[in-house]
């Protein structure tokens, strides 16, 4: 299939006129349509590609006297391309027809565009704000607009955030958060329950909103450090995506060895986080020994990170053009010997977990997320693979992984056990991949020297340990960032969590939550 066939079909069968279609990069196609056709075009792409909306975001081009542009991004893993539907929106009357009534995965993004830009999505069912809480932020102030100025003394909006209410005899609500009992990020969970089972769970996030997208504006390639702080446990994935986008714009060829070291960093990040999650799932059903065992594995990998790259979370390793630090032979030996020990520990861990009947009983058929639901919500990453969706950017785009014969981990039952199994097989696969990478890695420089900042736009992407991390960046002629849109897999996956706990009991919520292990800061930006 070629994207031009799709365009022909779109024009001839659906009567949608395409203003312009350009291939900005080998893997990105920008298709310009009128704003009134955006909804029909998105519905067509969603059906035809069988792909949810990966990103939907707006850009303010008022400084160029153009108004707004809304981009709707789909991934075609068959064509190995990202398809951007772009629609200009007039600045005087900023609105477009809501996509969420035909493509549900667009719903959260529409709310985001409305609060950040003041662009209305006509007929959308949910218009509540996500991040700029009504209690502290006034109405009518849109931080991502170019003419936004910070002013003090504004009165918070008087609009009340309405939680979905479940009514009926014996129904009660359990509000939890934003400050939780454990050492964990802030979020508000509201359970509606009758007797034991959960009837509805509503998750209100945004507590860790720090205005990251705005902070990127005007910055240059040095903002890679900031990208590492968007979500601390995904420091590498975010920095890789950020650098990838800028490298595409600046046309910097990353040396092969640099790309291998990036891949090793990504897999090390996956290792320590998956170890943490496996332990978390065990402790949330009260099985503490494996949890302590996992904490030791995590500590081993993080100490290794420090030995190799001088940082336990690998912050500061990535830079535009490659990586800041090479792995010499001595460190490579340390990497190999540590992984050997970790592999032995994982074997023991698996035996401990899977030989315990009471443990399996708790996680089997708990928190089922059906394939269809996952597809509709646009759930990605580990959670999607556990529900039977074969999505992984590592298999679609990356030749380094292809050479190492990457195998995707997949389960079909969509319960906590499936997510646990996916994590364990990814853990094993990551260790194998690091071995392969270390073996395949050529010698040479790890960083491209000298590049010329220029104008352009590009999508940077990578498969982080939670799922795909996407950075869309546009730069001005001086090479400074004009707009940076970030999508962390947590943003869409939180909805998956809200669905999978329905019918479960509240005490099972922690284990369902841990099996997704989503980021508050990545989702809140």
């Amino acid at each position, binding site marked *: 299939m070629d994207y031009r066939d799709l365009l022909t079909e779109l024009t001839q069968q659906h009567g949608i006129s395409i203003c312009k279609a350009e291939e900005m990069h080998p893997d990105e196609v920008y298709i310009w349509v009128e704003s009134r056709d955006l909804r029909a075009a998105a519905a067509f792409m969603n059906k035809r590609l069988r792909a949810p909306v990966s990103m939907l975001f707006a850009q303010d081009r008022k400084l160029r006297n153009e108004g707004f542009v809304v981009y709707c991004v789909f991934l075609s893993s068959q064509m190995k391309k990202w398809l951007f539907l772009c629609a200009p929106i007039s600045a005087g009357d900023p609105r477009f027809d809501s996509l969420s009534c035909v493509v549900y995965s667009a719903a959260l993004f529409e709310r985001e565009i409305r609060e950040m830009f003041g662009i209305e999505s006509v007929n959308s069912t949910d218009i509540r704000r996500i*991040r*700029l*809480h009504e*209690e*502290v*932020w006034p109405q009518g102030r849109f*931080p991502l607009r170019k003419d*936004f100025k*910070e002013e003090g003394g504004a009165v918070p909006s008087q609009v009340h955030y309405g939680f979905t209410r479940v009514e009926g005899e014996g129904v009660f609500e359990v509000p939890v958060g*934003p*400050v939780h*009992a*454990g*050492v*964990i*990020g*802030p979020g508000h969970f509201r359970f509606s329950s009758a007797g034991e089972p959960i009837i509805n769970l509503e998750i209100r996030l*945004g*507590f*860790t*909103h*720090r*205005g*990251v997208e*705005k*902070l990127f504006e005007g910055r240059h390639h040095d903002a890679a*450090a*900031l990208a590492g*702080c*968007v*979500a*601390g*446990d995904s*420091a590498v994935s975010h920095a890789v995506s950020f650098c990838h986008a800028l490298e595409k714009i600046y046309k910097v060829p990353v040396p092969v060895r640099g790309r291998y070291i990036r891949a090793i960093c990504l897999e090390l990040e996956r290792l320590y986080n998956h170890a*943490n999650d496996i332990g978390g799932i065990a402790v949330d059903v009260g099985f503490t*020994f494996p949890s*302590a*065992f996992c*904490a*030791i594995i*995590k*500590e081993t990998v*993080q100490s290794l990170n*420090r030995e190799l790259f001088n940082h*336990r*979370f690998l*912050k500061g390793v990535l830079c535009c053009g490659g990586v800041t630090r090479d792995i010499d032979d001595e460190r490579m030996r340390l990497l190999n010997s540590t992984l050997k020990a970790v592999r032995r520990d994982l074997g*023991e861990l698996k*035996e*401990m977990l899977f*030989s315990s009947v009471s443990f399996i009983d708790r996680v089997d058929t708990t928190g089922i997320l059906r394939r269809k639901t996952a597809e509709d919500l646009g759930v990605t990453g580990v959670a999607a693979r556990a529900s039977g969706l074969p999505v992984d950017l590592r298999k679609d785009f990356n030749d380094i992984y292809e050479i190492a014969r990457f195998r995707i981990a997949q389960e079909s039952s969509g319960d906590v056990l499936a997510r646990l199994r996916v994590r364990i097989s990814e853990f094993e696969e990551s260790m194998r991949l690091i071995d392969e990478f270390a073996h395949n890695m050529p010698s040479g420089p790890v960083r491209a020297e000298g590049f010329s900042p220029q104008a352009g736009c590009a999508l940077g992407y990578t498969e982080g340990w939670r799922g795909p991390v996407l950075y869309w960046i546009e730069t001005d002629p001086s090479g400074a960032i004009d707009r940076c849109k970030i999508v962390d897999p947590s943003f869409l996956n939180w909805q998956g969590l809200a669905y999978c706990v329905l019918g479960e009991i509240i005490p099972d919520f922690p284990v369902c939550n841990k099996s997704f292990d989503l*980021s*508050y*800061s990545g989702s*809140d930006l």
Partner: protein
Amino acid sequence: MITILKNRMLKGVLTKKIAWAEPRVYETAGAELKALIAKKFGRSLNIREVDAGSCAACESEIIACSNPVYDIQRFGINFVASPRHADCLLVTGPVSKNMVLALKSTYDAMPGPKFVITLGDCAFDGGPFKGSYYIEHGAGSIVPVSLHIPGCPPDPETIINSLLNFMKI
């Protein structure tokens, strides 16, 4: 069960001896508070942690303090689930506008005598998020801070060293 017992024996004790190092901290506690801490808290400290907009790396390191390798509990330091049980509030993150109220309420819910420690560069002055429209200028503008532990994030050894040094346990 056999696997658990076997691994318990094989792994042995992994807990590290914490090497004593004078930590790089910013202390603003007066002599009065220090005397009070020495008198009232003795050799124990119960900490309530609040994430006020951090990237979760600081949380990860705080959790790591309780793992078998660092085992902060052997020094009498506990992380508790409720502010009502806490002597000390540990704040991470630049304090986003949405967390101001929650942070204040948590502090108010703690019984006295109490004090606040900030952890990580963001909590000091906003760190990498300085200048954003949606953050306060560090936790110090919301609650009175007695000690700051710098780092992005500080590693478990630094955290333990700083706390022990502050408490003189």
